């Protein structure tokens, strides 16, 4: 791992000289077309259907009324706010939890880090519905934690089940593997000799972290957070099973508006608004990748 930082790696496929053939373009054509068909087209169709539709007299025309309704409806706004709160809280907790794990994995050797890494990756293999029910059994009311506390004579906890903290705990656990992996790959940019040099001139641990490690991995932090945030913002299963009835996150809210309230127009409006927030987070990711390429 020590040599990684020295010099840019040679690209796998040489793109200079006579080897500039359309193979690469053909290879990406299939996923790009699929994306255009299954993702890009529905987005434009959804936006069009919410702003260009028949009015009360049945004459099609431009209208923003469904968006005006969303942003003037306190219930919808509360749902949006709780989604933003959950996303922000998850991102913060993910950083607090995953950064130390990644640092530990990068700077220690032996058998122990391998076990820690396996443990950190483990949530990736647990479906979220199983996680939700395990959560209810362990952290839920009269669950395992309560039983253990009771056994040593302590009072029960106020369970996070069916409160906004329920989805936060579940989503953080679910997103640990991806965040740790991305941060760990970023740690590859931190050269051992840079740290040794800093230590030689008397930097302590915090100074090493702040002046040497953090600048090299800031890009990875941004990527990890935008990945996690994108997934969390539109998550469905965990908020549905663990969250409160109201306010609800955008995922369950959209689903309920569409299926239970039989109101496709407002469901699509909610989807477009959710998409706009996600695209803002997505731009962070694209920007950081682009900055990386320039370097």
């Amino acid at each position, binding site marked *: 791992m020590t040599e990684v930082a020295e010099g840019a790696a040679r690209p796998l496929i040489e793109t200079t000289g006579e080897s500039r053939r359309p193979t690469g373009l053909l290879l990406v054509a299939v996923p790009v077309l699929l994306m255009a068909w299954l993702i890009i087209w529905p987005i434009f169709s959804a936006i069009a259907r919410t702003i260009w539709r028949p009015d009360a007299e049945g004459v099609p025309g431009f209208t923003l009324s469904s968006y005006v309704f969303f942003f003037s409806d306190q219930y919808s706004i509360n749902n949006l706010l709780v989604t933003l709160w959950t996303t922000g809280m998850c991102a913060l907790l993910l950083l607090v939890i995953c950064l130390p794990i990644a640092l530990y994995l990068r700077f220690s050797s032996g058998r122990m880090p391998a076990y820690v890494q396996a443990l950190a990756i483990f949530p990736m293999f647990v479906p979220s519905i199983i996680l939700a029910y395990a959560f209810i059994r362990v952290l839920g*009311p009269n669950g395992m934690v309560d039983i253990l506390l009771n056994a040593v004579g302590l009072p029960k906890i106020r369970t996070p089940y*069916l409160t906004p903290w329920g989805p936060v705990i579940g989503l953080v656990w679910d997103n640990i593997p991806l965040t740790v992996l991305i941060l760990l790959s970023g740690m590859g940019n931190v050269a051992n000799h840079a740290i040794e040099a800093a230590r030689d001139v008397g930097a302590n641990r915090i100074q090493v972290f702040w002046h040497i490690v953090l600048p090299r991995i800031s890009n990875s932090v941004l990527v990890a957070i935008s990945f996690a945030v994108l997934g969390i913002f539109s998550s469905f299963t965990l908020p*549905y*099973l663990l969250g409160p*009835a109201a306010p609800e996150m955008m995922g369950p809210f959209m689903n309920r508006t569409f299926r*239970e309230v*039989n109101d496709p127009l407002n469901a699509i409006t909610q989807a477009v608004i959710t998409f706009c927030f996600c695209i803002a987070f997505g731009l962070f990711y694209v920007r950081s990748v682009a900055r990386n390429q320039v370097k």
Partner: protein
Amino acid sequence: MKRRDFMLAAGTAAGALMLPRMSFGAEGVIDWYTSSDSNILDFWTNTVKPAFEAAHPGVGLNLVDAGDGAGIIAIGERAIAAKQTSADPQADFFESADPLLPAGAIDAGIYVNMKEAGLSNYSKINPAGIESDYSMPYRGSQVLLAYDTTKLDPADAPKTWDDLVAWIKANPGEFVYNRPDKGGSGGNFVRRAIHQANGLDPSMFTVDNYTQEFGDEALGKAWELLADIAPSLYDNGAYSSGNTQSIQLLAQGVVTMAPVWSDQILQAIDQGVLPDTTGLVQLQDLGLVGGFTRSVVLETGTNRDAALKLADFILSEEIQSAILTELGGFPGVSWDYIAPELRERFADIVPQSIPTFPGGAWEAAINDGWYRNVAPNVDRDA
């Protein structure tokens, strides 16, 4: 095998599984869909399917879980589209469906008129359950209150709505009902509150009398009743996210009482999910809402005739008795067609009357109104 080869082989196999499976409704295999809970699917898998296949050699059943009501409607829409192109809808039988949905399905001619289909058992159906000529009630269940008899003496169990409200307020945190759109037990508890707020008269609400004005007035009064008890519910106003989750809270001893479906609770007690000390009580001033489950046969299905045989079969005494003994539901046929010893054994759960509540526009109004008016107006941290 080298790791690389293994990865390639595994990837290919996984890819092959994910290819869109081209399937056509097979002759002799009835494509059956349900939107009910898993206990119903289990009942069909373990009881109805073997019995039907034994009685009708050469005809098979392909049991598919469509998820929920919206799943069935989506398959109905597919059947309408298939009919327009004279294609195979790949569906023959809906275990539970409303023939009025998707809108225009009956006019499109995709559902069989069960009344005129010549079923030998059609005349046995309980007339109270018939809602349309295009659907066939075959089982029923009702919501009742389940409680823990070790914490609440059966003699003190509430018998009227007012008793229930008094009990909930006197025992804060001991009652939970699920969100009305996430399962019928909570949904019908909410509908019982609507009946309570509107003079206990279920006939006030019909499938086509919803108007914004009447809805706001009638439902508004019910939201007041429900918001009033909200602070005394489990965790200062939390609502579980489904029928099963309510039973889970009851099973973990977190709450003392919850509204439950009769068939689900009897099965849960039978399987030991809930202890024998679980008590059941029905409100006597007006029961909690219940209803019949109605099956629909597709006119355009490849196996239309076999599906009608299946419809006739589930009205037979064999299956109707099994609905009582194994499912804990009540039969779709009139009680006269049930064996006398069963009639006696299940006298307790046999309802005298089953209040019902219409679907359609009312359902959407309830699902939206409850979330806006009842769920948020509680300070859970108080």
